[in-house]
């Protein structure tokens, strides 16, 4: 009985999320919608899904469509934790946003459990479609709701088209939808096309054009979710494809990653709006991740070695959500709004400074530890030239991260930002994220806990 239960565990997590979707939809049927109940339902189904994922022993194939390994578990943790802040603190009038969020998480869960390219594609679409709607539904203040959503949708469709084309090539090369390729030229083309779809999702250069616009035009809290869970899904896709493809695009990944970092660092230097700046910062982190995936694949792509990417994503969940939530909490939008914050709101300013330094990757923050592990793996993989470019980009990016600290503490001025009432949850998330960023760098032994998740 227990064996059977464990066997259907991945379905169980899917069912609990789907149950959450249905439950939330039912709440929506009432005339007066209880948002608190919606939130509780969402959290419950998420918790139940997590229980199912982690109760499942990491063994290979489950059915022709599903499989589970250590990476599945680890990435589910990232997806769920990345969605938590938005679920806990988001402000909505009705149930639709939670519905869409749970739907997207359902897609991510199945993505992590897919054993088959067709399944991978369906989950990819399942996780993406609700996200486009979410962007349309929760725009940033003073932005048209549809513009960014349409842009995002087009970029997503384009990436889906690449994926489908790759899938067709793969089918004609191997005669099936299984992951394993046969190494023929057509098959290599197929994997490269599908990898482009993944890079689209991650937002790597030169497929990044949609990213700053979308992250800027969405509500900051939603951008937090987009830059963590959704990006993690793209990284997962890239890792899975890389694991099974033979050669071809893998050797390009480190270069793409380093290029992304450079473009992000230099494009961010000119930004005046903070949310757009954070979007470029997120682009830079996407570059580190792609570099990390490249190094991981070159080193043999085994599950244990995925620790740097996993730890990076997990820490980035805190750093990115924390930074975007800070914007939501204080309503600052430009550099000058930050001035004097160090004096008027010392604790908040400290939190944002910790987050900025962590995003920059300065020891002793969590961001340093994460970036260090990725660079370390790239060093082991012998990627010296991309590493030099990446170090250079890190140094260049330091300029604008330091500017955040400088504006808050060193510049004269009085910040006019007002903290809205009833945002206790948001400020809790900001301070928790800042605490994670500031403390974890002092505790590298936390890594062994992460290593245990990966088996």
């Amino acid at each position, binding site marked *: 009985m227990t064996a059977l239960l464990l066997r259907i565990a991945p379905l169980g997590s899917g069912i609990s999320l789907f149950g959450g979707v249905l439950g939330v939809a039912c709440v929506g049927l009432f005339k007066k919608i209880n948002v608190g109940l919606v939130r509780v339902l969402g959290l419950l189904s998420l918790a139940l899904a997590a229980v199912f994922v982690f109760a499942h022993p990491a063994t290979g194939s489950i059915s022709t469509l599903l499989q589970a390994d250590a990476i599945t578990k680890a990435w589910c943790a990232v997806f769920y934790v990345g969605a938590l802040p938005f679920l806990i603190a988001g402000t909505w009038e009705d149930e639709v946003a939670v519905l869409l969020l749970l739907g997207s998480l359902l897609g991510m869960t199945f993505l992590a459990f897919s054993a088959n390219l067709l399944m991978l594609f369906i989950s990819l679409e399942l996780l993406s479609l609700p996200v486009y709607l979410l962007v349309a539904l929760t725009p940033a203040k003073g932005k048209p709701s549809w513009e960014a959503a349409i842009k995002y949708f087009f970029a997503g469709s384009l990436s889906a088209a690449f994926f489908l084309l790759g899938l067709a090539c793969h089918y004609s090369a191997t005669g099936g939808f299984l992951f394993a390729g046969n190494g023929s030229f057509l098959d290599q083309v197929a994997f490269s096309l599908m990898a482009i779809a993944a890079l689209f999702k991650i937002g790597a250069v030169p497929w990044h054009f949609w990213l700053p616009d979308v992250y800027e035009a969405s509500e900051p809290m939603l951008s937090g979710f987009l830059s963590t869970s959704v990006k993690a899904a793209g990284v997962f896709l890239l890792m899975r494809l890389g694991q099974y493809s033979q050669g071809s695009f893998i050797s390009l990944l480190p270069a793409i990653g380093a290029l992304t970092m450079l473009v992000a660092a230099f494009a961010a230097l000119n930004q005046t709006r903070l949310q757009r700046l954070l979007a470029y910062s997120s682009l830079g982190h996407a570059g580190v991740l792609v570099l990390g995936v490249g190094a991981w694949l070159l080193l043999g792509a085994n599950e244990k070695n995925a620790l740097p990417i996993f730890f990076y994503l997990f820490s980035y969940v805190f750093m990115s959500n924390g930074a975007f939530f800070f914007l939501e909490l204080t309503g600052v939008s430009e550099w000058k709004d930050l001035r004097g914050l160090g004096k008027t709101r010392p604790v908040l300013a*400290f939190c944002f400074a910790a987050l900025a330094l962590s995003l920059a990757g*300065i020891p002793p923050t969590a961001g340093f530890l994460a970036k260090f592990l990725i660079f370390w793996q790239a*060093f082991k993989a012998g990627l010296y030239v991309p590493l030099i470019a990446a*170090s250079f980009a890190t*140094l260049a990016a*330091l300029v604008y991260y330091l500017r955040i600290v400088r504006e808050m503490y060193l510049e004269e001025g009085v910040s006019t930002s007002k903290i809205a009432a009833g945002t206790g949850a948001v400020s809790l998330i900001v301070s928790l994220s800042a605490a994670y960023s500031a403390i974890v760098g002092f505790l*590298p032994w936390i890594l062994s806990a992460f290593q245990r998740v990966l088996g």
Partner: protein
Amino acid sequence: MILTLFWAFPIIGALFTLFAPAFNARARWISLICAVMELYLVLQAGTGFWSGHLASLSEPGKFLTYGISYSFSMDGLSWALCLLNAFLTVIALLSSWKQDLSAGFWASFLFLEGAVMGVFLAQDLFFFYIFWEAMLIPMFFIIGLWGSENRKHAAIKFFLFTFFGSLFLLLGILALVVFHHQTTGVWSWDMNILRAPNHGLYAILAFAAFVVGFGVKIPLVPIHTWLPDAHTEAPAAGSIILAGVLLKVGVYGFLRVLLPAFPDWGMKALPWLGGLAAINVIYGALSAMAQMDLKRLIAYSSIAHLGFCVLGIASRTAQGLAGGSLQLINHGLTTGALFLMVGFLYERTHKRGLADFGDLVSQAPLLTFFFGVTVFASIGLPGLNGFVGEFMSLSGMAKVSLPIAVVGVFGVTIAAFYLLPAFQAVFLGERKPASVSPKVFDLDLREQALLWLLIIPMFVIGLHPGPLLNIVGPAIGKLIL
């Protein structure tokens, strides 16, 4: 556990000072109490070193992952520097006692103290690097927030320069770790077992990366330009710690990491290192002669004095190494005292130019006395501490390379040419009209006590350096060629 306490205690104290509202209001008292307790901890841990029956105090390492292990150890050299750190932190906190400063100021010093303790105690290069970088952030705020007019520029310059150096340090560390893995198949970050290859481009590049990484902090001459700005703009307490403690970590890195890791290569590169040190001595001294600002003058004199430390170490003789290590402590005491007194002057008059003062001896005889003693200690008058360190460094170098030692001796002479005229201009020279030079009150009891605390050790080390040399002796004995 006790060694973990050394670095963790001040940092926890800093967090309490910052974030506990009840403590926040009494930040200066909380921070002082923490600093004094830390000083007591260090002193009490050192009884074994004094009596000479303890060579080192270490914690069993805890292995983490990727070859990184959490291991700390303390020998005589570490202990002496930890003591200097704890002592100067107390002095620095007390030096700003009367100023109205926010909790962040006091907490920054505690955080800095903890990070420096970590650098002096870590045996694992990963942790060494973490603590190395952690020193950067509080110092950035100390300069940027509580410094004088040009503080923003100085703070950013300080941060970018030292971060640039740290990247090289990280590269050097990675090179050692990777080479160790290639030869033994084991990942390790333990600074006691990592060794560089004996020859080849790889070794040269790794060596150069370390020299740049540590050299920014010392600072060695072409990469020193952050120092005059940072010292000048920092508040007095910040300058005391910056000169007294933070410059020492670079030389400590030379002693602990660079020289052991390059047993063979280190020898070939030594003349180069000695040459760099001699340039430091002469360049620092000549630049100091041209300064019209007291703080800037002392900052350049720091460059010269740290040159003597490197000079001694580069000789790798028993005298040279002992003298270089001793000079680390000496420089912490004398330069700390000088910055402290300039800080007192600045607090009273908001001026620090050489031309702004004259004939202070008639208004503030006590200050003149303390300043005079410290100036002579700094020049290296026999009987005071500076003489012992410089003499030993130079005699060590003379055994290896006479020309470099001779250049160094010239440096000692030039020191008299910039410190004595400055002393004369400010304290003895002609009295300036009241419009230029406001009246200066003499030292109060707190200020006198602080200066006595700094000056007594100068005499003790100058007259009887034996015990201190015995304490650092075993630690540097391994490095003698």
